């Protein structure tokens, strides 16, 4: 079945008791067992270990990503942490793409490092650099592509091969493109992770995460860590996210089309120094972006002539776009990574990976493109 | 629908369709102290599937003129008169609790036009605790409380039920409370009835027995005595129900009635 059909129907069966067409919100802690001997015969005992509403979302996401199973988490960070704890022990080593969400960077360098796990941040756009970082104790590769916020792309298939050779698992953060545009598991990755907060929900309504595995063994390992550490998704969040998923393809198509229009518009604007969007011919990795994904997403960044001061002025004066963290929602958002999402990354590291001070990150929403262009033009006028 | 039987006014509901005696008929017989509203979740269903539905209030109950009849045999005779008055052919009888005793006696004595009979939650006899008869005569609300308390299973006592927003047990209380006089005479008629075994042996038309898993009014042993006395019963047990099967488990009950009646007394 096609993606649009599956994004609506996968994981959902009408409630047998009432016929309710949507999965009910099982806002419950516990489940009444038919008898001692039939403990768990209906599949549920306690909502940390499993909940029917959350399960419906997990089955949907597993289907969309082409995985065998999925475990949902309370946040995207919880999903990343769950994967790290499931597959890394003290003394192990992991290779992370050198541009990644600031929270991922912080988790690795400030938290997991305390438990004896070592990290190398390698340039994912250069498979040779990634291969050179492999050590005897390398157990996990985490690739974020396109990367937040630089939009640098990594070759999922190439890195998957390196990981396989090293006997390590390859995890791809697929938040930016979603399974509608990019299927890491079919490119050779072992796990695909998401902040469902972003495009999966799509409405700025919930915070959540998901881990989709290509094998049951990997998924069970993630589930075990989740049940042990408790970072679960709530039934209400799962239910809202399930509703959001139903329009994923529509939103991705519409939002990425608007992003392309805005990127092209800004590229010709006299006050703009550079625009970085994988869909532009000028994007350095345009060939890779076109090869491994069927769309370019709705995230891009640009630099205003005049550097940081000009960028700040634009963001403080812009209409329609909201100055806010998060991305992937219907509301267009504008962010200054250096002071907001990536403030925890040291300046030298930022400079090294290309998070320049004047970088203005845009998450394109679903407003009328004329209003968004008008807002950008008016704000640029004041710069 | 009002009509005259033996010169007295009688009432029956017809399930929301005009009564057409040319169609095959389903006659519903309710238990002690109850009236036509007991069968609301079944009568309308059959009426809208081309059956002539008749749910009579027994004499002295709700809309039918009194006095109440004092023996099962007298009620059977009265039913024969109703059938004769309305000139009904091809009858399926559906009976619950005391209605089953009425049905045993009616069908065995007047088998001519009966095509099938469904017995729900009953045995061959219904011996009644003297304390209950005494309560029914002197303090009907106490007798009603006892019968509701025993009559409904777990789900009923927690006010569950198949109609959204409705408490089945509270509805039962109101129906039963409507006939305090009828209740006492019904219970005495039940207690006095001794002919169940012989009547059961005399039933030759197709018959089914539907028993409830947690019935405290007609326990399993009593129900199985009825099954044993009948020639060739089709037996069903609805586990998750107390005695008040037609309102406690109406969907399961309706499906069993439908399959049985559609097969044995088909409507066009």
């Amino acid at each position, binding site marked *: 079945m096609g993606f649009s059909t599956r994004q609506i129907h996968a994981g959902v069966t009408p409630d047998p008791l009432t016929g309710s067409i949507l999965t009910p919100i*099982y806002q419950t802690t516990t489940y009444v067992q038919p008898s001692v001997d039939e403990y768990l015969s209906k599949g549920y005992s306690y909502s940390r270990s499993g909940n029917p509403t959350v399960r419906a979302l997990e089955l949907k996401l597993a289907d969309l990503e082409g995985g065998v199973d999925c475990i949902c988490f309370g946040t995207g960070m919880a999903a990343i942490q769950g994967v790290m704890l499931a597959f890394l022990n003290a003394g192990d080593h992991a290779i992370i793409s050198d541009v990644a969400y600031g929270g991922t960077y912080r988790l690795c360098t400030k938290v997991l490092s305390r438990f004896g796990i070592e990290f190398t941040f390698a340039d994912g756009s250069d498979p040779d650099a990634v291969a050179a970082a492999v050590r005897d104790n390398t157990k996990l590769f985490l690739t974020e592509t396109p990367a937040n916020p630089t939009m640098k792309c990594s070759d999922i298939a190439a890195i998957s091969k390196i990981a396989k050779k090293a006997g390590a698992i390859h995890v791809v953060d697929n938040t930016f493109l979603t399974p509608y545009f990019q299927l890491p598991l079919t490119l050779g990755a072992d796990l695909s992770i998401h902040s469902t907060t972003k495009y999966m929900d799509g409405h700025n309504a919930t915070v959540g995460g998901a881990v989709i595995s290509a094998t049951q063994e990997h998924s069970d390992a993630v589930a075990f860590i989740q049940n042990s550490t408790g970072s679960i998704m709530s039934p209400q969040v799962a239910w809202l996210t399930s509703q959001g998923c139903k329009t994923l393809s529509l939103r991705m198509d519409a939002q990425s089309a608007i992003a392309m229009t805005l990127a092209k518009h800004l590229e010709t604007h006299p006050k703009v120094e550079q625009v970085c969007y994988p869909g532009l011919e000028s994007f350095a990795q345009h060939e890779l972006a076109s090869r491994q994904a069927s769309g370019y997403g709705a995230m891009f960044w640009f630099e205003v002539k005049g550097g940081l001061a000009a960028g700040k002025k634009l963001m403080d004066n812009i209409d329609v776009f909201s100055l806010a963290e998060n991305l992937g929602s219907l509301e267009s958002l504008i962010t200054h990574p250096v002071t907001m999402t990536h403030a925890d990354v040291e300046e030298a590291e930022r400079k090294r990976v290309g998070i320049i001070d004047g970088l203005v990150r845009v998450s394109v929403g679903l407003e009328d493109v004329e209003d968004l262009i008008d807002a950008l033009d008016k704000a640029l006028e004041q710069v | 629908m009002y009509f005259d039987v033996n010169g007295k006014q009688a009432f029956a509901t017809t399930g929301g*369709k005009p009564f057409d005696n040319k169609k095959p008929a389903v006659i519903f017989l309710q238990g002690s102290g109850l009236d036509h*509203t007991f069968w609301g979740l079944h009568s309308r269903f059959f009426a809208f599937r081309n059956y002539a539905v008749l749910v009579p209030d027994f004499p002295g109950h709700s809309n039918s003129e009194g006095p109440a009849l004092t023996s099962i045999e007298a009620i059977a005779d009265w039913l024969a008169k109703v059938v004769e008055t309305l000139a009904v052919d091809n009858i399926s009888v559906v009976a619950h609790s005391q209605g089953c005793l009425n049905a045993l006696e009616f069908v065995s004595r007047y088998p001519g036009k009966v095509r099938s009979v469904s017995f729900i939650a009953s045995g061959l006899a219904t011996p009644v605790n003297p304390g209950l008869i005494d309560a029914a005569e002197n303090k009907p609300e106490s007798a009603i409380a006892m019968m509701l308390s025993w009559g409904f299973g777990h789900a009923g006592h927690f006010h569950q039920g198949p109609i959204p*927003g*409705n408490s089945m047990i509270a509805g039962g209380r*109101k129906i039963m*409370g*409507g006939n305090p006089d009828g209740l006492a005479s019904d219970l005495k008629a039940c207690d006095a009835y001794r002919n169940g075994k012989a009547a059961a042996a005399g039933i030759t038309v197709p018959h089914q027995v539907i028993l409830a898993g947690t019935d405290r009014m007609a326990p399993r042993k009593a129900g199985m005595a009825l099954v044993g006395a009948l020639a060739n019963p089709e037996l069903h047990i609805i586990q998750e129900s107390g005695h008040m099967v037609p309102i406690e488990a109406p969907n399961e009950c309706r499906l069993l009635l439908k399959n049985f009646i559609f097969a044995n007394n088909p409507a066009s």
Partner: protein
Amino acid sequence: MHSTRRSNRSEAMSHFYHFDTLALHAGQTVDGEFGARATPIYQTTSYVFPDTDTASSIFNLERGGHAYSRITNPTVAVLEQRIAALEGGSAAVCTASGMAATFVAITAILGQGDHIIASTQMYGGNISLMKNTLPRFGITTTFVDPTDVDAFAGAIQDNTRLIYGELIGNPGLDILDLDGIVAISDEHHIPFMVDATFNTPYLCKCFDYGVNITIHSITKWMGGHGLAIGGVVVDGGNFDWGATDKYPTITEPYAPFSGLNIWEEFGPSAFATRIRAEAMRDFGATMSPMTAFLLLQGLETLSLRMDKHLSNTKELLDYLSNHDSVSWVSHPDLPSHSSHKLAKKYLPKGAGSIVSFGVKGGRDAGKAFIENVSLASHLANVGDAKTLIIHPATTTHSRIDAEALVAAGITEDMVRLSVGLEDVKDIKADFEDGFRAAKKIAKA
């Protein structure tokens, strides 16, 4: 049918679950698929039918079931059946608000040319509905003094189809004489509907006295946390609609359902069925599943909360009665209240947690009191877990002159208090701040 009044007492040789057990369990069938202990939130519009026969039989009211959430919803149904169980009613219909409950209850049986007898002491929204809105559709109301039973009898007209009052009146807190009014409504075959919001079934089960319909704003004590708006109509199942031809909406064939005779086929839940079949379908004042779920959580602790509301009220009555800044205190549990005897009869646990009192120094002192309390929230709701307070003369009734205030039973110094669940010592300490400020104004 005969009236079954007062048949609800538990009897020897019979066992029924009691109030607190029902408040936790009634109406909920533990879901068979997973066994979830809490009531699932069926946040859905519609329901998949197994086959067309089931679909048509649900639409034709041949069987129960869910078709579309405007009419019924499994989560809302749990709340409805739980309230029916607590009230001792045969059925209940939840609505989007308490006002919607009043409206659908009235319009289920009344039409153009019909007449209501209603108490003067009612929530302003109720009064306005009957005084201003319903007359536009040909339904008129005679308002009578709730303490004068004879006035109810005297107001009866040929076209009277409903008697309506609040058990604990607003704002005077006068108690309806249920026995006296039931005698009149029985004699004239007119249903008697009571707004039982202020008492809840925990303090008084109106059906035990022969009341035929109750309505509630569940927003208030039933839900208890001030977090969701909702109402309910409860069918007592004890009114003989067929005894006269005055109620054709119940006893005559209803065309939209193939000539359904609701009274014949639904008997004790005929009134609720009419609301479901007509008002929920055509007016659509539906409660949302999420609201029902939230209100269910509140309902589970109804008796605990009511006991605490009452014990706090009792302490505050003592405190206020002995306070030198208070000119008067009004509550039916005080021997000085004109309804004290009726309160003891119908509300033996206590006559609710609304108290009104006068602040010495009149209008400005009352205002100063309100402005200088901080724990008590200054707002127009009642029945929250938090203590609420309002000065009617400067807020809800600020646009009417002193003379009209008196007619409405409101004095310029009056403060209305909805006693919450805080530690009563903190409420008293908070009031001390208010009284100090009021005293300064009174002296000035």
